[in-house]
C-alpha cells in the first residue's frame, strides 16, 4: 500500500524552482532513500511533506487523505513525523525531559512516557547523559535524542533529513541499527542522505532528485548505477 504520495508538487523561491513537479510515493513498510546533490530540493520537499512549507502547486496524500497545506501538528497527529537537518532538541531541559515532553506531545500519559523514555535512552546509548541538559550533549547525541523523541510514540512514517551527516561513525551505526530495527517492526521511513554506503545498506529503494526534479526512482543499486544519477552527482561540486 502507498502510505505517502505527492502529485505535481512544486515550490519556487524567487526565480529558483526548488522543487518542480515532484511525484513521489513511499510504500508502507519500506525505507526509501532520497538522494541528490546539494541544493537539489530534498529539504524543501520534506518541508512540504511535513507541513512546514505550503506548496505552490500539487498535492500531498497521506494514507489516502489529501493533507496538502495541513499544519505540522495535524500531520504529527496522523503519525507523520519529521527530523530536521539541524538538530532541534530542547536545550535547557534534560535529555530525559526532552523524551518525556515528546511523549506527552504525542498523547502518551506520563507514566507510559517515562517508561518508554527509559527504554529508548538505553537503546540509544544515552542513559549516561540522560540527566544532562540537551544543550550539553554532543551533536551526535542530540541526533540520537531526536530519534528517541520521534519514536517515543512510533510514527507511521518518519521523514529523516540527513540524519547521518557529521555524526561519529559509532553513533551512525547506532542510528542505522535503530532505523533497521524499527523498520523490521513495520515502520516506514523516508531518509534523505548523502552517505551512499548507508543508503545502499539501509534502503530497499531510492529516489534521486536533481534541480528540483525527480530523475530516478527504483531499487537502490539500480538508481545508484543510473547514468543520469551519476551525471547529476558529477555535474555538481558536491561529492558522493
Amino acid at each position: 500500500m502507498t502510505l505517502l504520495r505527492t502529485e505535481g508538487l512544486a515550490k519556487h523561491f524567487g526565480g529558483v524552482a526548488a522543487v518542480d513537479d515532484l511525484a513521489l510515493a513511499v510504500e508502507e513498510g519500506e525505507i526509501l532513500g532520497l538522494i541528490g546533490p546539494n541544493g537539489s530540493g530534498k529539504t524543501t520537499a520534506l518541508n512540504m511533506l511535513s507541513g512546514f512549507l505550503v506548496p505552490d502547486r500539487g498535492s500531498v496524500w497521506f494514507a489516502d487523505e489529501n493533507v496538502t497545506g495541513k499544519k505540522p501538528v495535524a500531520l504529527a497527529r496522523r503519525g507523520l513525523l519529521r527530523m530536521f537537518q539541524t538538530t532541534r532538541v530542547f536545550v535547557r531541559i534534560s535529555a530525559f525531559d526532552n523524551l518525556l515532553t515528546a511523549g506527552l506531545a504525542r498523547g502518551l500519559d506520563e507514566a507510559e512516557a517515562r517508561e518508554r523514555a527509559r527504554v529508548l535512552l538505553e537503546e540509544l546509548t544515552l542513559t549516561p547523559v540522560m540527566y544532562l541538559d540537551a544543550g550539553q550533549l554532543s551533536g551526535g547525541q542530540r541526533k540520537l535524542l531526536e530519534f528517541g523523541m520521534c519514536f517515543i510514540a512510533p510514527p507511521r512514517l518518519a521523514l529523516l533529513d540527513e540524519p547521518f551527516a557529521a555524526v561519529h561513525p559509532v553513533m551512525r551505526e547506532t542510528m542505522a541499527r535503530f532505523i533497521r530495527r524499527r523498520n523490521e517492526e513495520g515502520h516506514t521511513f523516508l531518509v534523505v542522505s548523502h552517505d551512499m554506503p548507508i543508503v545502499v545498506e539501509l534502503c530497499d529503494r531510492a529516489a534521486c532528485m536533481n534541480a528540483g526534479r525527480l530523475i530516478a526512482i527504483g531499487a537502490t543499486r539500480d538508481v545508484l548505477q543510473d547514468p543520469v544519477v551519476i551525471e547529476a552527482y558529477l555535474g555538481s561540486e558536491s561529492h558522493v
Partner: protein
Amino acid sequence: MSDARNLWSHRLAVDFRAALVVVAVLAAAPIVVTSPYTLGILIVSMYFALLAMGWNLLAGFAGQFSLAPAAFAMLGAYVPGLLDYHWHVSLAVGIPAGIVGTAIVGWLLGRVVLRLRGPYLALTTLSFAEIARVVISNSYDFTRGAQGLNVPTLMQSRVGYYYLFVAVVLVVLAGLFFVMRSAIGRFWLAIRDDETGAESRGIDVVRYKTLAFALSCAICGLAGALYGTFSQLVSPELGLLLQTGIVIAMVVIGGIGTLTGPLVGALLVYLASEWMRGLGNVQMIVFSALVIIFARFFREGLWGLVARRRVRALPRAAAGAR
C-alpha cells in the same frame, strides 16, 4: 557529574518548596512588622511579585518576551474601576471581570503576535501597551484620563489586605507549580527552547502560546485589579513602560524561568528601591546595572545561584556554548 536533581520535576519541586518558605516568611512578617507604612510597602512589593510571576510565565517559561505586563495590570485595574464608576457594579463582579477581561485581551494579543519572535514580538507588545495607556489617558469622559479613577476598597484593614495579597500570591504560585508540572508546562518549555522543534514533535504551538498569553495577562490583570482597590485610585501610570522595566528587572535579578526567582526578585528590588528612595534617582541606575550584570553573568539570577549551590556541580560548562 549530573544526576536526577536536574530533572524538571525535581527542579520544580525544590523551587516550589523554596517559594513556599518565602510565602511563609511573608505570612509571619506581621508578627514583627506592625507599622501600616511598612505593611503597605510589603503589599506593593507583593503586587509586583504577582506581575513578575505573570510576566515570567510568558517570558521565562514560554519564551515570549512581552513588554506589556504593566499595561495588563492597568487594564485589570480599570475594569472594576470603570464598572463601579459607570454602573455601580460591585467589586465581587468587577475583580473577576478584570481577570477574565485581561485574559481575553491577552489571548487576542497572543493571536496577533503569533508569528513574531524576538525584537518584533517585544516591539509589538510594547506598541500595544503604549496604545492602551494613551487611549485610557485620552478618553477623559470615560476614564477621567490622567486624573485617575477612584475605586472602592475591599476592606479598611491594612493587615486584612496584607493577608489577601499573601493568599493570592500563594494561590498563583501553587497554580503555576501545578501547570508547570503538567504537560502544558513542559510544552511551554519546549516552545521556549525551540518553537519549530516543538511543532515538529506534535505540540500545538499556536494553542499553547496563546494559552500562555491569556494566563500571564490574567495574572497581571488580577494583580492590577487588587492593587487598584488597595490604593483606591487607578491611573494610566500603572501602565507606564517604566513599570514593565521594573518587573523585568525583578525577574532577571531573582531568576527567570523559576518560581522563586520572580517572587524573591520582586520583594528584594522593591524593598531596596524604597530604601534608596531618599537617594534620588540613583535607584534606576543601580537596578539597570544589576540587570546587565545578572543577564550577562548570572543567567539564572539569585535563585539560580542558590539552587546551584544546593545541587553541587551541576555542569553548566556548555551554557555559553549554546
